[in-house]
């Protein structure tokens, strides 16, 4: 990490936190702070990505604004986190996508939909784009041939995974653990990531609603992340069915891919909708205003991907199938494209930060009461 203003401010705040330590019961950040007296820019990037933004420390802080020290850890670490996304992005020229991220995500989504519509219209037999095909085998591929889906899907998703991997390596070089990674550390990190333990706030959840605690954010994120994984599983099973079993889509409602996709889609809609609603009412003080656009754009993109998927299920036998599928595929393409250049990267860096925390779990705090 570079020594930016945000990093300098984070260092100032972490040094105060380290002399206070009242918040050590809330999450992993403060116990990690207590292991060191000096914070390199890499350490601060690690702490920033370890922070889940639960806000517990902000409302508990005796030095929060308007105190002259103005300690606002969730906001300060969110600033550093946003800068770390830019710093670790690969390839670097695309890191610019993080500036005005909401606009970028929206534009990519719009262009992807337009592209998919154009391809679908060009490929469908003249006059057949709005034809009702019932549930005959391969009906989808009359609108969008399988090879086109696979080339575009695998190509963009593959690139995004590679770019995320490069980002993860960049993070680890700068902000990773110095000690070696053990199997048990990986297990702990995975558990902490999957359960969102650090949105637990020491038992009762986050300060979603000012000073009181709730599990809202944690459960909604579970719905969203779980829904996302189920949808991904649905796609994978479908790919497997077609490629290895020779079973052509569309599949009946009572089938593994459709059930996975339906449950996943509904969970995604609930999760993203709930998180979006929370953003409308939450206290803006512990948040960074300029990051709101990108966060909301990503929630909306996920929600629309899920909604159009569910809609496609509803209309797949009708003449609306062609246009709905093209739009749905447009959203999925956009999702694949912006994966390494959007809020979605937090999953990678936060997991990596949790891994460093797990690797360092046996280190002893310095000083202490």
């Amino acid at each position, binding site marked *: 990490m570079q020594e930016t203003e945000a990093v300098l401010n984070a260092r100032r705040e972490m040094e105060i936190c380290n002399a206070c330590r009242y918040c050590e019961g809330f999450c992993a950040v403060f116990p990690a702070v207590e292991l060191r007296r000096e914070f390199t820019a890499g350490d601060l990037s690690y702490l920033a990505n370890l922070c889940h933004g639960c806000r517990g420390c902000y409302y508990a802080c005796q030095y929060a604004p308007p105190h002259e020290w103005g300690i606002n850890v969730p906001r300060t670490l969110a600033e550093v986190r946003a800068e770390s996304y830019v710093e670790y992005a690969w390839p670097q020229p695309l890191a610019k996508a993080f500036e005005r991220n909401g606009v970028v995500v929206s534009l990519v989504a719009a262009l992807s939909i337009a592209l998919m519509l154009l391809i679908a219209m060009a490929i469908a037999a003249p006059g057949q784009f709005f034809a009702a095909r019932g549930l005959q085998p391969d009906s989808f591929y009359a609108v969008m041939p399988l090879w086109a889906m696979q080339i575009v899907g695998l190509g963009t998703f593959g690139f995004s995974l590679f770019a995320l991997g490069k980002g993860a390596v960049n993070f680890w070089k700068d902000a990773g653990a110095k000690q070696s990674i053990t199997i048990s550390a990986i297990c702990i990190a995975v558990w902490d990531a999957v359960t969102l333990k650090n949105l637990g706030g020491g038992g009762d959840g986050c300060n979603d609603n000012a*000073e*009181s605690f709730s599990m809202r954010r944690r459960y909604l994120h579970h719905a969203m992340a779980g829904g996302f994984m189920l949808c991904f599983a649905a796609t994978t099973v479908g790919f497997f069915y077609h490629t290895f079993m020779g079973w052509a889509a569309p599949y009946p409602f009572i089938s593994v891919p459709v059930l996975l996709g339906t449950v996943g889609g509904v969970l995604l809609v609930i999760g993203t909708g709930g998180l979006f609603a929370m953003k409308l009412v939450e206290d803006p003080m512990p948040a960074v205003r300029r990051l709101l656009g990108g966060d909301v754009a990503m929630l909306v993109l996920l929600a629309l991907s899920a909604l159009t998927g569910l809609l496609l299920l509803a209309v797949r036998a009708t003449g609306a199938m062609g246009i709905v599928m093209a739009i749905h595929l447009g959203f999925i393409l956009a999702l694949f494209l912006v994966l390494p250049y959007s809020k979605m990267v937090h999953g990678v860096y936060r997991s990596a930060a949790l891994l460093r925390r797990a690797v360092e779990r046996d280190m002893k705090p310095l000083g202490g009461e």
Partner: protein
Amino acid sequence: MPDRKQTYDVLVAGGGNAALCAAITARQAGARVLLLESAPKAFRGGNSRHTRNLRAMHDAPNAVLTDAYKEDEYWDDLLRVTGGNTNEEMARMTIRASSGVFGWMKECGVRFQPSLTGTLNLGRTNAFFLGGGKALLNAYYLTAERLGIDILYDTEVISMNIDDGSVRSVDITYRGFPETVYARCVVASCGGFQANLEWMREFWGDAVDNFVIRGTPYNRGRVLKNLLDQGVAAIGDPTQCHAVALDARAPKFDGGITTRLDSVPYSVVVNKHGDRFYDEGEDVWPKRYAIWGRLIAQQPDQIAYSICDSKAFPLFMPSVYPAIKADSVGELALKMKLDPAKVIATVDAYNAAVVPGQSFDNLKLDGNRTEGLTPNKTNWARTVDKGPFYGYPLRPGITFTYLSVKVNDKAQVLMDNGQPAGNLFASGEIMSGNILGKGYLAGFGMTIGTVFGRIAGQEAARRARN
């Protein structure tokens, strides 16, 4: 907006732990309660905002406290720090009551941290609030709002008008405008007077200019003075207070916990002339930190300097202000504007007096001492010789004053004639001097506030409803 014209059952002056405990308890007993906090909402909670734990007696381990901490041991600890300057009956009552507050606190939404690990931990004697005192206050305020207690911020009590042994009316300023409010019973839970530097000056003289007030700037002792001026009995020495060693660079007010320095037991501490003046290793720090404020207050210009080497540096909590660092003791002295020759001589004499051979253990009284010095250092004495060297300037940091209104064990305020006032109660720092004549035990202020707040709320509600 509460109707301020009504006569409340119970009026609570103050907005910290003791006030909230009184207000919530009174409300739970059925009283209509008005709570007046002089600070704005963002700074509500008095000194409780800066606290972290409460010292609690317990006969067996529980969810937040390890081992056992029985009445007699607690009493012995209190007896030692106060030098007997306490009231055994009232102290023992408080100690016993401290074991029974957890259930109620948890019902009010207060959450505790699993017992602390780490060096010199207080996990056996003190229950730590998850997130600290401000989180505790947040829980109490949420509970108070939920129960329908009327809360006014930016509202200072100017006078509790006592006539014939009872408070008849209470003059306040509400957001700067004078008003009078009425209540059947009144609880004074509005702290000591440490933030009133002019009043402090009466007892300390200009030394006060070198004091740091750790806590809220809103504890100006207005109600305390008002009551003492109206024939309420006083107790406690006005110069006695909870005073700790703070980094001299701390802000004048409201610096809270982070400006304290734990370096003393592992350091050599000198005054501005470069002389040592007290045994730095007398006891473990949680039992000694509260005497060092006063020790420094008694030094010339109320300043001292803690000096250690790189062996000792990792042993204590990181400080908010960076240590002053140098490659030699002389250079360090120069950087701290002390006479280098004098400081070198003091450190050399100390190093020569260290009795070698014992193994060093910062977790207990390890018996590593000096011999032949005045004063000697009796524990954790190791030579200061491994550079780089680190120094901190220290000032007295005042937490709260002990000059108090006299109360009985029902939290009733006593008049000069020894009779309890008809409808006036007190809890927290404003009556702490009844138990704490001098010295301090970590977390005992919150214990007094919680126990007496609960009693005052209970008694005030009962009286108001009779």
